[in-house]
């Protein structure tokens, strides 16, 4: 019971702190819409490209924004000493990471809902699948992204360094996960890298879901994504140290 209460406590301060930062909240929700509008209206006359690209953009924005939010927030906790202080209470590392995870999951899902509905109803991308199936993919991707953000924040000494991880960890995922060029058409030496990045599987499954496939049809991609999420979650918990 205390475990659940502590997790809820951590989740609520994450949400409360973010909500007090009005500008950040506005950017979290507006920036993806701006990006999606640019892409959507640029490819307005090329529906095949748009239908192929839009799901991947949704997944990519979920990954990038959640990674940045978590990485910077967790680093701030480390730098301000609040993380250390929480860890000298009877709170466990697992409670801490799960509290964070749920806090950012709520934000990511609100963000994803806005992007998804904007993409379908404003940009006009075809969507014939189940919305809930898309959310399953996005939830697993968010867990991956929050865990990656927590893990990476261990190696950064300031916010600037967290941002520097984007070209190293996120950009390769964007270029090699099949957003612009299908993985099969990538040069042979890039294909093995595509196979070991989470965004490849998120894009593939989300694209298929939006094209009308069911969740059981993308179970192998979803399974690999869950595996990534699990491994990164363990790494995130291990990276939080009392000492």
């Amino acid at each position: 019971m205390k475990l659940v209460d502590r997790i809820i406590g951590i989740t609520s301060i994450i949400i409360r702190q973010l909500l007090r930062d009005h500008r950040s909240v506005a950017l979290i929700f507006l920036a993806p819409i701006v990006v999606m509008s640019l892409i959507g209206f640029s490819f307005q006359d090329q529906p095949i490209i748009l239908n192929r690209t839009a799901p991947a953009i949704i997944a990519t924005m979920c990954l990038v924004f959640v990674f940045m939010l978590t990485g910077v927030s967790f680093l701030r906790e480390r730098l301000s000493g609040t993380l250390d202080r929480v860890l000298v209470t009877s709170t466990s590392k697992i409670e801490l990471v799960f509290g964070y995870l749920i806090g950012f999951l709520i934000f990511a899902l609100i963000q994803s809902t806005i992007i998804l509905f904007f993409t379908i109803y404003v940009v006009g991308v075809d969507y014939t699948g189940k919305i809930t199936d898309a959310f399953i993919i996005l939830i697993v991707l968010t867990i991956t992204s929050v865990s990656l953000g927590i893990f990476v924040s261990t190696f950064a000494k300031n916010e600037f360094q967290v941002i520097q991880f984007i070209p190293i960890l996120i950009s390769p995922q964007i270029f090699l996960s099949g957003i612009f060029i299908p993985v099969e058409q990538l040069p042979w030496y890039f294909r093995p890298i595509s196979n070991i990045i989470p965004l490849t599987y998120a894009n593939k499954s989300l694209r298929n879901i939006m094209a009308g496939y069911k969740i059981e049809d993308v179970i192998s991609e979803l399974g690999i994504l869950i595996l990534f999420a699990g491994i990164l979650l363990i790494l995130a918990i291990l990276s939080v140290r009392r000492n």
Partner: protein
Amino acid sequence: MIENSIIINSLSFSYGKNLTLDDINLEIKKGCIQGIIGSNGTGKSTLINILVGRLKPSKGSVHILGSSPEVKLLKNIGFMPQKNSIYENLNVYENIDFFARMQGLSNKNHRKITVKKIIDTVHLKNMSKEIVYKLSGGMKQRVSLAIALVHQPKILIFDEPTVGLDPELRRTFWNNFKNLSSKGTTIIITTHTMDDAIHCDKLAYMKSGKILINQPPEKFLDTNKNIYSLEDAFIKLSVGKSNEVS
């Protein structure tokens, strides 16, 4: 019989090859205010970090209330670090309420009463809805103190708690500490300030990772050796004349 709250036996700690704590032995009785003084870099904060379980000893042992420092023991410890380490975007009440929750006070109504009581204790009643970043340094320290006290721990560990406080606030802090000590709470304080050191029941002087002397503050004074104040004693000890003081 007065029991020991903390027993430190032959404790050593190294950062790599750098020996930071060297064969520390210390017994702290229940309800005692134990001060730890020493120049910068003598290992005071390292010792505190071992007591709160953030560092593990390289050698020797630490027993707090009969067990080694570990997660389940932390509910008995209140810790106020050197840096305030509070959430700047939350208000006073939210900060204290959050840490109370992290210490296992899961009943909402009980927690509400406890948090309000502790806010009164640190004289922040009218500021409870203020966002922390708008508060003065002294007020932030009061919030930090309240966080350390909120779960009514048996042991309080303060790493330089009164740095930057005005004399009035310092007195308020010490009144709180003495009140808690009289009720059986064991308090450990590291400090550079001799005005603080004089309030302690016992004072351990650390140098180069060792505790050279541990005795009541008044025993540091010796008019025959021109040691009229703790500051005189501290300066003599710092320049290496420990035999003149002890």
